[in-house]
């Protein structure tokens, strides 16, 4: 366990905090959860870094997929689930295409996001997306600029989706209700206000 030194000054205590990795601080079951949800053998990662090298998000942010893989093997559950970087994956699947051990790091990240959401840890914009899907069937609904562009290209203003066929919206809402996604999104967003 991390050695605690209780300085009177709170800031100093934080600054000089013991940052060592100790086994008791980790959860050995975490990697098993990730593998079960993500359906990929994340423990076989040998940390080559091909994933981070392929990642379009990495050069523009502090998101390092290799580090998430490492931390999940070490069972650093708290650290992973509270890390805002977890939500910077664009799910382009380049890492999954190139992983030499034939793992799916993208799916491991998705699994970790799932586990975070179970604890209500999720960025607000993701929840707003849930609300938009519930409302329109689209994460990014059609808008006027888009409609004009479609018209210029000789397409219908509305695409062949729930925009054109709103009668399918109840089906989509049924799925979101089944997983209580809308309900949780509304609840969490309301808490933050």
């Amino acid at each position: 366990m991390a050695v605690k030194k209780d300085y009177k000054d709170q800031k100093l205590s934080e600054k000089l905090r013991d940052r060592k990795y100790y086994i008791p601080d980790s959860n050995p079951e975490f990697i098993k959860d990730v593998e079960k949800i993500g359906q990929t053998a994340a423990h076989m990662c040998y940390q080559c870094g091909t994933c981070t090298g392929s990642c379009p998000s990495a050069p523009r942010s502090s998101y390092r997929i290799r580090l998430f893989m490492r931390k999940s093997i070490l069972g650093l559950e708290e650290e992973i689930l509270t890390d805002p970087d977890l939500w910077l994956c664009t799910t382009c699947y380049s890492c999954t295409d190139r992983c030499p051990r034939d793992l799916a790091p993208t799916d491991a990240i998705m699994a970790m996001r799932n586990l975070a959401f179970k604890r209500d840890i999720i960025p607000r914009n993701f929840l707003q997306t849930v609300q938009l899907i519930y409302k329109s069937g689209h994460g990014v609904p059609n808008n006027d600029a888009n409609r004009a562009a479609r018209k210029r290209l000789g397409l219908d203003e509305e695409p062949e989706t729930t925009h054109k066929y709103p009668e399918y919206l109840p089906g989509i809402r049924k799925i979101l209700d089944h997983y209580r996604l809308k309900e949780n999104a509304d609840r969490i967003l309301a808490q933050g206000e």
Partner: protein
Amino acid sequence: MAEVKKYEEPRIGVFVCHCGTNIAGSIDVKAVMEYARTLPNVIVADDYQYMCSTPGQNKIAEAINEQKLTGVVVAACSPRLHEPTFRNATKAGGLNPFRFEMANIREQNSWVHMHQPEEATSKAKDAVRIAVAKASLLEDLVPKSVPVEKAAMVVGGGVGGMQAALDLANAGIKTYLVEKSPTIGGRMSQLDKTFPTLDCSQCILTPKMVDVYRNEGIELLTYTEVEAVEGYIGNFDVTLRKKARGVITPAEAEVRGIVGGGCTGCGDCSEVCPVIKPNPFELGMAPRKAIYIYHPQVSPLIYTVDFDACVKCGLCVEACGDKKAVDLEAKDEFMTVKVGTVVLALGYDIFPIEKKFEWGYKNYDNVITSLEFERLICASGPTGGHLVRPSDGETPKRIAFVLCAGSRDSTGVGKPYCSRFCCMYSLKHAHQIIEKIPGAIPYIFYMDIRSFGKMYEEFYYRIQNEGAKFIRGRVANILEDPVTKNLHVNAEDTLLGRPIDMEVDLVVLAAAIQPSAETEKTRRLFGVSCSQDGWLLEAHPKLNPCGTTTAGVYLAGVCQGPKDIPDTVAQAEGAASAASIPIHRGEVELEPYFAQCMEDKCAGCGMCINQCPYSALSLVEKDGRTVMQVTEAKCKGCGTCGGFCPGGAIWMQHFATPQIIAQIDAFLLGGEQ
């Protein structure tokens, strides 16, 4: 006897090699060739892309024929590389092959002066001029053939030595297998399982040990050391010390007239022996008596008395009874055998890892070495295969493996090289604890995992999949909890970029290996060089890894450098094959660089006799005078006597005084003799 030579008018041909751009890239080859044409005695000069190619060699032979050359100079690479090639080309042209001289303008010139073309060209001209000066004075020489004794010796009875001995014996060569300890088997017999196949080490080794013991072509000499070596390829006289064993074999008993006597390996003697000592085979973790065998599968199954520990109470003699196998008055015996070739398979020792204080070996109870781990996990080991913590006998659940312990260490304390098999056996150890101890987790601290062999990377994959935890970082230090005797392993997880403090029950140090204690003494006896790190030096690291610079002596196994079992066996087979070639040919040619006595100048003072490191010189009576005589087969042409002789009466063939003086003159006078 050598006469002072008279020379014909020298006619020299000079051939300058481009070696692609190796030479031509920095040296103006045409300029060197043109310059050669201006030198005295040079009849023809030429250049070619690759002199060593068939057309290049043909140029030499043709020039000898057409120009009636008396000497040939090739300016190219090192004579170590192509002197034999161009000697053959010289011979093909009808000249004596020793009328060839090489000027090294590659290794000693173009490669080191890559960015100084003018100076390099000037130096190449010097080298050619000097070579021409010597070539003008070269004489016909004839290599001497000596017969080869149809017997071989293998020193070291580990898996490498055993394989070499088996191959030699099976090729029809009488082979002496010399082993210092009471049994053959070596390090491999101490191992539990072998990677990556997880074969039981003893199971695959003991049939080989039995083969060696039963092979009629092998004379097995255990508890024996090499005492002295004389002679040269084809004719080594090796003196062996058979250490006092205190126990005689059935064969020895028969010689002594004891019918049905000699050691049968029954062990009655050991049972009654009152002296208890640590068993070195079990690394001191199990006891043995003063009369002992290392383990049940020893070969030969003959007990040995440790005379340093024996109190000579005589109980064993009584217990042995009519077999009369125990002889407490035994003394060391010496024997000399004659062999044609020798294979050294001297093995390795574990580096004394307690020298790296930071890991606490021998200071903390629960820090052990990998070899100790092998004995503890082995069913025939001191704990019957139950891995336990030395401090309390409990089964460890969290086990840290420290890789590169003392290897890849340039501090002068450890070893700078990679010990090459620690990664793989540590993976195997991780597998063994996962298999044997439910819930146990191996933590492997590594810098790189070097899984280079066939099926090795796949083995690494398998062990990771089985649940071994890998932490990339070298262990900085280990601290012991004085109460629980648990260990805190401090390292950085370099992939996480964060320090780690890992509390574990047991630490296994994958300690570096080093040449065995006997290597230095033995290599000196056989005149074999070693590299800076103490491993024996091969003749060429790539093209002659089994040979040494001493003709007739070959290397097998780890004594040449760290290697695993498959590589050791492969090299042993290579060494055995190389060692059998001179024996099967029946004779070897010695380079004719012998010293020769010019008897009319020799005063018979005999001062050279003691100077000779090879005992090749002696004084004889000839025509009423005492003169020196050279035993050509023993002479290595080192020149010690030639340089020393106060009367200048010794002629060093191929390196004769007039030849060397001519070279020096050619250099100093700039060719304007």
